[in-house]
């Protein structure tokens, strides 16, 4: 049984645009790399403590321990955005890797499992879960920024643009999913547990919705490419660089007798004076 709803997509245009976006991103990163490379070597090399540094990295990056101790509310918001975004990215990467592999016959049947078979339902389930997490985190972040006016937020234009862009992606993604759900039977729609709340499953025919599906898919997919172009110039860079910096600092800090050492637990903050 074919579980995936297939409809025409502008693959050629999208392929060309993807190559251009990736090329631009690569170029921007090369420029960044060159700019960082103007810097000097560390005078003090990290020695030892790699095991401990790994634990610190896991706690700080994957669990975001420090943020949790400072403010559980902000931690929840950030962790929702972080895992929502990372999860959706993973699912998209899975699809982008499997498709070319399938064309070359190297996918060992995985693409038919994930696109046509039961795997597709799991992708939909997780897609909805990650999307919902991202949406909830973004709405909370925007709410905090625009209405709560927390003391430490500077509300620079760039920060708001990024939040709004991510929100746009999450919303177009859900709209697309809702359209798809409107074509499938109830038992399938249940896997898209959030999107199904907004439409009646199976209420429309393919012919009625196909042009909308194609249009919305294009809008969503090209918006993703837009974000890729914006990424090297946006605050989103921190999502790539913060884990690198945490790793570099955790490795060097034992030698510097810095905050992670000798005992991380002793130096936990007692709560943020901010909000």
């Amino acid at each position, binding site marked *: 049984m074919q579980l995936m709803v297939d409809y025409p997509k502008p693959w050629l245009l999208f392929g060309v645009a993807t190559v251009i976006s990736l090329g631009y991103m690569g170029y921007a990163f090369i420029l960044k790399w060159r700019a960082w490379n103007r*810097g*000097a070597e560390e005078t003090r090399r990290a020695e030892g403590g790699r095991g401990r540094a790994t634990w610190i990295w896991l706690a700080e990056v994957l669990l975001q321990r420090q943020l949790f101790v400072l403010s559980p509310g902000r931690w929840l918001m950030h962790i929702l955005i972080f895992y929502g975004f990372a999860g959706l990215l993973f699912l998209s990467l899975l699809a982008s890797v499997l498709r070319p592999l399938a064309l070359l016959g190297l996918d060992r049947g995985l693409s038919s499992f994930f696109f046509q078979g039961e795997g597709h339902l799991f992708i939909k389930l997780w897609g909805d879960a990650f999307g919902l997490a991202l949406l909830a985190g973004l709405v909370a972040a925007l709410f905090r920024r625009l209405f709560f006016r927390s003391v*430490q937020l500077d509300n620079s234009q760039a920060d708001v643009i990024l939040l709004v862009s991510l929100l746009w992606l999450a919303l177009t993604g859900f709209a697309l999913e809702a359209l798809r759900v409107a074509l499938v039977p109830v038992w399938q729609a249940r896997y898209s547990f959030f999107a199904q709340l907004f439409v009646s499953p199976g209420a429309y025919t393919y012919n009625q919705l196909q042009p909308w599906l194609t249009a919305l898919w294009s809008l969503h997919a090209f918006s993703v490419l837009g974000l890729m172009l914006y990424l090297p110039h946006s605050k989103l860079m921190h999502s790539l660089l913060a884990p690198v*910096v945490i790793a570099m600092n955790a490795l060097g800090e034992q030698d510097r*007798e810095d905050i992670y050492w000798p005992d991380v637990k002793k130096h936990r903050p007692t709560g943020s*004076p901010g909000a």
Partner: protein
Amino acid sequence: MARREEAQADRIAGRLTRRQLIELEACTRCGECQVWCPVFLQDKRECISARGKLSLLQRLVNDGLPDTELQDFLQGLYECSACGQCHVVCPVRINTHELWEQTRESLVSAGIPRPETQTKQLLTIKRANNAFDKPQQDRGLWAKKAWEAGLLKAPVPLWREQPSSVLYFAGCTASFDPEMQSVAVQTARLLQEAGVEFSILGDEEPCCAGKLRRMGDLEFKAEAEKRISLFAEKGIKEIVVSCAGCFKGLHSDYAALWPGAKKVRHLTQFIDRLIQDGKLRLKHAVPLTVTYHDPCHLGRHNQIYDPPRRILQAIPGLKLVEMPRHRAFSSCCGMGGGLKLVNPGIQHSMAGVRIREAESVGATAVVTPCQTCYMGLQYGVEETASSMQVYHLNEMLIRSVCPEVSCGEISARFQHLQTT
């Protein structure tokens, strides 16, 4: 960007490390640094907070900055006590205070001058070997005077005459500032009480040069190397310092240049061990309710939180209460990083905030093991017209071990010596 600006940006970037350049872009702009920054509390401009400085510096090393923003950045960079609070609370752990010091150095190397008051002080340190512009031969006079005034059990030997296992490095402030000489005298007496064999360098003792690093002097490395050769030449293996600034200098700043830096201990670590080993006996009660002020250079920069607290808790009759901001979150008194030279008003207000915090927990005195913080907190007392007492930790120890060498007694006997 014009070619001249590009070359300047490259020069600035070239003196920062790769990690530091990446750090500029890793900032999440969460603003956590801002709400904890003790300077921002006094001057609420974005360029004062770590976030503001990081973003301006990122633009400076990449695209250059228009003059008004460059001035803002310089103000933020130099109106900063390099206290390291932003480093501790940053979820990305950006090593900010190290970055500020390194940036100060790189700006000067790129031809962007630092504030004149700082330059003047650095020149004095390099010329006179101390920040007080006093003659070097007066450096060890405190020891001679203390012996003549009957404050010591024995004369303090000079290293060149009698080298020993431990060097007591008194530092510029305790050597030259008449208000603070009591710290050196009390340290010597406490070490004598515990039976520690030690010597001092006297007029051969150099300034630790830590201030050069704090204010980004280009000659820091060369100056540090001179001191390291001196220690090697003299066969010095272990150093005890009674100043948090000297400890930061000799222990932390020299670490990249000298393995011996590991053998530099702060007095609180040394005394704590002596008490635990039963060599220093705390006999007399000191009936005071005190709070402890963590100097940034000991606490946040070097993780020395427990030894001074253990010492205070071991003093009979003394009650220790903690301020809301303590240990890694201790609020800076504003004396570090050359801030006071640039904007004394902000330092006074910062210290005032700390004094108010001490009052809020019902303490009658603030105790600190750093003479610079001691002086800084005194400004806070003046600023707030508070009745709070400020003590160096030595004073608490001395009152319990040998009260006859209390600060009051020292200044009375020194004055008497001067008049006779």
